[in-house]
Structures are given as structure tokens and as C-alpha cells.
């Protein structure tokens, strides 16, 4: 009396059969990926996210100018965005170009900037120009930039009060925010795994004590904490040190939520019958954790990680915005938003808000990918009878 899943007569074609076999032998990761692919919103968000991350990494290459004071355009402070054109009154061209804007401020114009566009002279946008030096990821040197212009500056998003190119600043800011987020999430994750893991696996009084600690840390109010830290950071610290310190603190107060999730997952999984089966074979705790428990919640943890990311980015942005986090000259979205608060800007220099759009898109992309992962992460739930 043999039993064969594949002995059913050919109502299924060979291709059908291959597909079914693939389904039967699919590991958890493959099943999750298959389910994830079916969700259009999540796939789009994932694509957007990858684009943003790559833009962040390659920011120095993609931006035409150095985002710090060194790369500023002294003649074009608070300048409006220059959008390259293809056609003007003299005809069209395949290569995009810009006209020069001459600005004048004098008693005649009541000390307001008056702009005159010189539309006879075309300045063509060049691609792959040599420009200022940079180091991608901090160690790959280069000086090639994606685009530039043959005479003068091209400011796709305009400039700020000191003439720094907002486009360049935005790209670098994305990278900074991602870095801070990564470090924060990493620290939180490690702490959460250890504390939540021990708590969930051993239970009992260890669990009670650790839970009290977790709750205590969670109740620490963020703003007063950061105000205190802002006061405490010595002025001599370089911006890099400050940067790492802020990330560290974000991680140190961000772990309780993750720890709680890890603990809950472990508490449920620990009581599963297959864990008991392994224990009855005499498996050690480390074997059970490694082979049964960890794989069982890897997918959930990845979801948690992805969803924690935007919170870290949001936290850093908010803190920098109110001046308690990173400061100039470090580029982060929060720092760039610091300048947005005056009415002057709101009325006259609306292009300062362009980084906000990037910021929103970045956070939303993380959220959608996280949600998509969460929906895809439990392919086994509806296979049980």
C-alpha cells in the first residue's frame, strides 16, 4: 500500500507538476518571497526604497557639488531651483541647458533681489564631469560627478541661505539619516535579542525582572532626555562623534519595543509541540534556540526591523529639527528642516521644502515594505486545517 502524491493521472501537465513540487519543497524564505512578490504596493515601495538607498550611497557621485560650505555658490544665495530646459526662443536642442540668471540688488530695487534672465546665452548641462573630490562610503575615492554645467552652477532644487546646493544636500542627508537609522536599529536589535530572548526563553523570575527593566527604560521621556544630553555633549566633539553618540542613544532607548516582541515570539514558540519533541530527544537549549526558535521568528524579526527603521529616522529628524540632535554642517533631513521655520522661508523660498517630500517618501517606502513583509511572513498560518 504505497502512497504517492504524484500518482494522480495526468489531469496535471508536467509543468503543473513541477510547480507543485516546487511548492512542496519551498523553504520558508522562498515562500515568503513568493507571497511578497504578489503584493504590488510592497514591490513598488521596495523598488523606491532601493532607489533611495542607492542614491544615498552614491550621493557624492550623484550630486554636482559638495554639500558643505566648501561647495557653495556665493552669488546665488536663497536661489530658486534651476530647471534645465530643452527648448527656448532660439529653438530646441537634445542637450538640456540653462540660462544665466543675473541678480541685482540696489537702492533702486529697494534692496530686494531682482532677477534678470539672460536668455541669449545657453549653458549646457554636462554629464560625467570632474568636480570636487569625495569618498563614497568613506573610503572609495573619486571625483567624477553624474552631471554638472559648463559654466557656473546648476541648482536643481535651489540653494539655501549660504548658497549650498539643496539637491546635493538632500542626497547626502538621505544617506546620513539612513546611517543613523541603521546604527540605532542595530544597537536596539542586539539588545532586544539578548534581553527579550533570555526573558522569553527562561521565563519565571528572570522574565519578571527583565520585564520591569524593559518597562522602566520604555518610560524614559525622549525629549527631556535629549535636552539633557544636548547640554551634556562637550562642544569640542566633532560632528562625527556627535553623530555616533546620537545614534547610540536612539538605539539605547529604542530596544524595549523590539525586546517585547522577541519575548512574545519566544514565549509562544517555546511551547510548541515540536520544541517539546526536540527536548524529549535530549536536545540542549542552544540546539533548540538555534534550530527551532530562531528560524521560527526570523521572519517576524525582519519585519520588526524594517518597521523600526522609519521610527529611528523620524526620531533623529525630529530631534535635529528642534536642535537637540545633529547640527550643521552635518547634513541630515532634520538639520535641513531647521531652516524651514521662519515665515520668510515659507513665503519666499518654498523650495526648502523639497527635502520634506523625500523624507516622506522614504518613511512611507519603509512602512509599505514592512507591511508587505508582515503579510508575506506567515505562509504557514492558513495551511493548517
Amino acid at each position: 500500500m504505497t502512497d504517492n502524491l504524484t500518482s494522480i493521472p495526468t489531469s496535471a501537465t508536467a509543468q503543473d507538476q513541477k510547480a507543485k513540487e516546487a511548492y512542496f519543497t519551498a523553504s520558508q524564505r522562498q515562500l515568503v518571497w513568493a507571497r511578497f512578490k504578489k503584493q504590488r504596493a510592497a514591490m513598488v515601495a521596495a523598488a523606491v526604497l532601493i532607489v533611495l538607498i542607492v542614491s544615498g550611497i552614491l550621493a557624492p557621485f550623484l550630486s554636482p557639488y559638495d554639500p558643505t560650505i566648501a561647495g557653495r555658490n556665493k552669488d546665488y544665495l536663497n536661489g530658486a531651483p534651476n530647471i534645465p530646459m530643452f527648448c527656448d526662443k532660439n529653438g530646441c536642442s537634445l542637450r538640456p541647458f540653462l540660462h544665466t540668471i543675473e541678480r541685482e540688488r540696489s537702492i533702486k530695487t529697494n534692496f530686494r533681489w531682482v532677477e534678470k534672465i539672460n536668455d541669449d546665452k545657453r549653458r549646457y548641462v554636462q554629464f560625467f564631469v570632474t568636480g570636487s573630490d569625495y569618498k563614497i562610503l568613506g573610503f572609495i575615492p573619486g571625483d567624477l560627478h553624474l552631471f554638472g554645467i559648463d559654466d557656473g552652477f546648476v541648482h536643481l532644487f535651489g540653494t539655501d541661505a549660504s548658497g549650498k546646493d539643496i539637491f546635493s544636500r538632500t542626497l547626502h542627508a538621505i544617506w546620513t539619516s539612513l546611517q543613523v537609522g541603521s546604527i540605532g536599529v542595530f544597537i536596539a536589535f542586539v539588545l532586544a535579542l539578548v534581553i527579550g530572548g533570555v526573558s522569553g526563553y527562561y521565563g519565571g523570575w528572570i522574565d519578571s525582572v527583565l520585564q520591569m527593566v524593559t518597562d522602566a527604560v520604555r518610560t524614559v521621556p525622549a525629549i527631556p532626555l535629549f535636552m539633557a544630553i544636548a547640554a551634556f555633549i562637550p562642544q569640542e566633539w566633532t560632528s562625527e562623534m556627535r553623530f555616533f553618540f546620537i545614534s547610540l542613544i536612539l538605539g539605547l532607548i529604542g530596544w524595549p519595543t523590539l525586546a517585547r516582541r522577541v519575548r512574545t515570539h519566544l514565549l509562544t514558540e517555546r511551547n510548541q509541540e515540536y520544541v517539546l519533541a526536540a527536548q524529549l530527544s535530549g536536545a540542549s537549549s542552544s540546539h533548540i534556540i538555534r534550530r527551532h526558535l530562531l528560524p521560527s521568528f526570523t521572519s517576524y524579526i525582519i519585519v520588526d526591523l524594517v518597521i523600526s527603521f522609519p521610527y529611528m529616522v523620524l526620531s533623529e529628524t525630529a530631534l535635529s529639527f528642534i536642535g537637540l540632535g545633529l547640527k550643521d554642517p552635518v547634513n541630515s533631513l532634520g538639520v535641513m528642516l531647521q531652516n524651514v521655520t521662519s515665515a520668510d522661508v515659507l513665503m519666499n523660498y518654498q523650495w526648502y521644502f523639497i527635502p520634506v517630500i523625500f523624507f516622506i517618501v522614504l518613511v512611507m517606502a519603509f512602512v509599505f515594505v514592512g507591511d508587505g513583509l508582515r503579510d508575506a511572513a506567515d505562509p504557514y498560518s492558513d495551511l493548517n486545517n
Partner: protein
Amino acid sequence: MDRLIEVKNLTLKFRTDEGLITAVEDVSFSLNRGEVMGLVGESGSGKSVTAKALMHLNARNALYDPESSIILHTDRGPVDVLSLRRPADLKVVRGGAISMIFQEPMASFAPSISIGKQMVEQLQLHGDLSKAQAREISVEMLDRVGISDPAKRFDQYAFELSGGMRQRAMIAMALSTKPKLLIADEPTTALDVTIQAQVLDLMKDLVDEFNMGIIFITHDLGVVAQTANKVSVMYLGRIIEEGPVRGVINTPMHPYTKGLLAALPRLDDLDAPLTPVPGDIPSPLERPQGCVFNTRCGELMGALCSTHIPSEEWVKPEHRVLCHHFNKDAS
């Protein structure tokens, strides 16, 4: 009129990630008042889906074939259940003329509301009763189902009652609206056997007293033998045999029914071997062509069984089978 419900050509498919799955195919049956029908089948047979269809309770991804029809005969005339859409219309069917009880009573009682409150809510939804009147009826029902100290139990919560008592309370709640038809989906499967015996006795008494019809869904043929008048055996969404309970159990016609009976351990013959039905139930994605049972049947009639669906045959006045062996014109 004696007829309670008529189901004709019920075909139901579900849209899932893996494709269109046929859960119920061409199911027809009818039930009269005072009759108990056993709906027997194993996993994947479609019995629960059929029961839920009677109250139009299936999930949103359920696709009913246009030829399917479920006619419920209420006091106000025949009602086409599948055409009902508005909650007000469905209310007549759900909990009103038809009540349903489930396998897991903890699942049908809200854990944080007392049993009494839920029963009263049920009653008030289906009639114009004041709270006091509803309470009186509920306590009376609790007493009727054999729950001791009913007034006290009325205020208790589901977790405070034992399994058997919870099941009785659920029966009380289901019957308080005086339904014409009771659908019981594996109501005693989760109960201990001594408690099951009590609950089955109770249900039989209630059928007599209320003159209800009961559709009793179970996988346990013994329960069916003791409670039902007629039994329908389902396999992979089709009724493959239906008849009076003595007829089907003592003289089964369909190879699957015979297989089921041969696989049952019987207390009156301890020496008989247990013969399983060979093979496994095909996965819903691999629905067999022709007769649904052909992949496991030991009495195949050649290629016919895997290419043609048998037509229904009445071998005795009330006993029908879906099998080529009984098709007079085997085409």
C-alpha cells in the same frame, strides 16, 4: 408545510492564492420538520461549507454557481437564501429560522460578556421582547437543557462553565429563538464521551419537543446512527450516498461508504481487522476528473470512472448513490 429546506445543485468554489478551489459540487438534499439528517464526511468533504452556505455565511471569496439554490420554507413563505444580501433580510435566516451550534463553544461565546447577556441580545435581535421577557425565556431555556441552577449560570461567563455545560448553554442560546432548523457542526466532537451521550440525548428530546429539523454534521458514524433518521455521506464536495440511517449503515452501496465502515473499529467485533481506505484525500488543487473517488476506489470499472462523472441513481425508494456500478446506462 412539512418541508423545511430544499437545496438544489449547490456548487461553491473559493478563490484563493493557489487558484479556484471547488469546495462543494452539485449538492442536493431536503429536510422536513422533525427529521434529523446526518451529514457525514472526513476533512475536505465540504460538509461545513455546505452548512454555512445554508445561512449564507461563507467567506467573501466564495463563488456560488448560478444554478445553486437554497430554499428555506419559513412561516412567511419560501425564502431564497442565496439571493439575500441585506443584513435585515439575512437576519431572518441567521439565528431566526435557522440556528447553528459549533464544535467549540468557547468560540461562540464572547469571553468577556456574561452568557445571559448574550442570550438576551440574541433574543432581542430576533423579536420584540423586553429585557425582562428575554431574561425569563433565557433562564427557562437554560433549565430546559439541563443546566443546574440556571439563574446563577445566567450571570456567569463562558470560562466558568465546564465543556459540557458550555455546549448545553450554546444549545440553549441557539434554541431560544425557536428556530425551525438547527445546524449542528460537530457539536460533540470536543466533548468527553460520557458528556457527549448526555448532550445527544438532550438533542433528541428537543427535536421531539420543538418539532425542529436538525442537520447534524459529524465524522462519527456512531453518533449518526444513534441520532439521525437519514444520513448523507460526502466526499470531496459531493454527496456520494444518501439514505435512511439503517439502510446506509447496514447495506452501504458506495465503495467509499463501505470503506468508511470497514475502517471503523467496532465494539461488537473486536477481531475484525481495520481496513483503511487506500490512498490519501487528494489535495484541493488536484481534484480528480470523472468520479471524485476514483483515485482511491477498489472497485473501479475501468477507464469510465476517471473520465465520466456518474449520475445519481435511486437504488431504493429513499436511498441514492453516485456510482457507475449503479448507473443503468453506463455510457
